[in-house]
């Protein structure tokens, strides 16, 4: 696998799987504004995943959809952190949102400095959109700053942020659901 694929696939997988997990709030978020916010954030994250997969796909001679949906579970390189199913726990969801955006900002800074102009250019574009995710996370982090359940969730989740390797138990069910259409209808596209 190329250097670019090794660099970008774990990031694309993080964005896809976190997007999938956050989409589980659509329709059932605590109030309407958050239903709208989480659905928009998800749309962006999955858009970022697609653009990252596309850069890898161009090099490997495949497609973004094939990378996103045709790999076996053990080929995904997302962190265990994004795999966790946190619905219906809002405090833990916001804790993950805050921690992820914080870590993602650092990762994007590094990508923006890449020698590969396509990688640096895409990272700069993604970062413009992520700025709004960070502001949303910041707003919630301030709002819940005194909330014990939120503080406990931060303690619990912070050590897990970059835990890669074996998948969590709940990843199998996510993979089943996420790849169902492609497995049922060969070559389905969006």
């Amino acid at each position, binding site marked *: 696998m190329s250097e670019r694929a090794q660099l970008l696939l774990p990031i694309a997988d993080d964005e896809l799987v976190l997007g999938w997990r956050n989409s589980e709030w659509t329709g059932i978020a605590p109030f309407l*504004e958050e239903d709208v916010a989480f659905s928009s954030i998800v*749309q962006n994250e999955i858009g970022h995943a697609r653009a990252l997969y596309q850069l890898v796909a161009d090099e490997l001679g495949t497609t973004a959809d094939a990378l996103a949906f045709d790999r076996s579970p053990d080929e995904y390189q997302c962190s265990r952190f994004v795999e966790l199913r946190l619905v219906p726990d809002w405090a833990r969801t916001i804790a993950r949102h805050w921690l992820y955006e914080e870590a993602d900002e650092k990762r994007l800074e590094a990508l923006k400095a890449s020698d590969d102009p396509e990688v640096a250019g*895409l990272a700069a*574009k993604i970062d*413009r*959109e992520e700025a*709004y995710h960070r502001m949303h996370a910041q*707003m919630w982090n301030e709002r819940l700053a005194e909330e014990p359940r939120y503080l406990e969730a931060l303690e619990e989740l912070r050590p897990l942020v970059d835990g890669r390797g074996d998948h969590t138990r709940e990843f199998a069910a996510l993979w089943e659901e996420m790849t169902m259409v492609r497995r049922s209808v060969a070559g389905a596209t969006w």
Partner: protein
Amino acid sequence: MVTEAQVWAALAEIPDPEIPVISLVDLGVVRAVEVENDRVRVEFTPTFLGCPALEVMRDAMAKKVRELGAEPVVAVISDDSWSTDRITPEGREKLRAAGLAPPTPREAGGPRLVQLQTGAFRCPYCGSTDTALENIFGPTPCRSLRYCRGCRQPFEQFKTI
């Protein structure tokens, strides 16, 4: 043979799929047009990467070029070259007239929460800057929701990217 000016004019007829009051040229997503014999290369810079209208825009541009009798090549450029600063003055006025507050200029260092919460964003209906942030996100990823205390009307604010 088709000319660059003809291609630009044809692309200017394509409405934005989600905000049809402005054209793709007003939106600033066409970065370049190059004509080489009967082949036309259009450089298309997407707005938001997750925008579901991107494929519709790309296909509409290819169709317009084909209608001019040329072979289209629509190159999607996913870098930082599109910004809301690229929306034309005419495009901004059309957005405002449709009740969508046009984006504020891009600033060094990017947008900040305190600025969204306290900045002087202007209501597209009454012109008051006494407006409040209701939600950073709105009906599409490119918009926020604000409320005007002047005319007591909620409105959509184009995000600055």
